[in-house]
């Protein structure tokens, strides 16, 4: 079974979903991302769904789960590029993905991730900022 590639971009991980995913692929992505976040100590995950013309409850829940797991592993998740028709349908479906940050595109998503990471590391206040 093919797996969705996860790219490393500095301190963040980038996932670009471009295929119509069957459920097993969705679950595999969830597992792969979780282990990669832990292994790389990434500070954030960017999930690009600009190619998806449909997001159903299974994929929606995957996104929510990834966001939750990342937070536990001290990383932020930002979902970018959701299409209008997909957003309208998700809202009608009853999924508002609470706790998931969103941005219009990858560039804006990166800005969001950097700001969130700076804030979180700044809050650490345990001498991490001292050289």
């Amino acid at each position, binding site marked *: 079974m093919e797996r969705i590639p996860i790219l490393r971009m500095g301190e963040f991980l980038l996932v670009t979903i471009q295929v119509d995913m069957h459920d097993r692929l969705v679950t595999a992505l969830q597992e792969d991302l979780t282990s990669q976040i832990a292994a790389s100590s990434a500070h954030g995950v960017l999930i690009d769904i600009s190619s998806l013309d449909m997001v159903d409850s299974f994929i929606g829940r995957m996104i929510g789960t990834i966001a939750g797991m990342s937070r536990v592993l001290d990383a932020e998740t930002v979902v970018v590029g*959701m*299409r*209008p028709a997909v*957003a*309208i349908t*998700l809202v009608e479906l009853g999924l508002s993905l609470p706790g998931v940050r*969103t941005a*219009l595109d990858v560039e804006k998503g990166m800005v969001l991730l950097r700001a969130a990471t700076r804030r979180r590391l700044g809050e650490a206040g345990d001498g991490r900022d001292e050289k």
Partner: protein
Amino acid sequence: MYTTEVHQKSREEVIARQQQEMLELSTPVVKLWEGILALPMIGTLDSARTQIVMESLLQRIVETGSSIAIIDITGVPTVDTLTAQHLLKTVTAARLMGAECIISGIRPQIAQTIVHLGVDLGDITTKASLADAFAIALERTGRAVRRVRAGS
């Protein structure tokens, strides 16, 4: 018979398309600044109209890469539950896409109706005027307005 039916169908399609175009023209989405859109709504909002307008707003958000959309309802006399729900759904959809909506021009009567209907605006920012909403939008996108010289 066949010819008449086909003619009827295409005439209906033309009418439907014209109605759609009129709807989109009567509620234009305006770009106030880089990344800031405004949607001034005029007249009564019925369910169908609101849906079409909201869909075009979301489309414009993507096309212009705007992260803030101001929905101004100064020109809307009344709001019913269905319309309020459509507004809420649009704001939620915009959020999922990565854009924030500010609702401006909520007159006291509409504010009363919203509370009376039990509609929960949650953490949606609301401002009395479009001007106030624009000021907030500028602030949120990291901009400030500076006086360069005294006005005449």
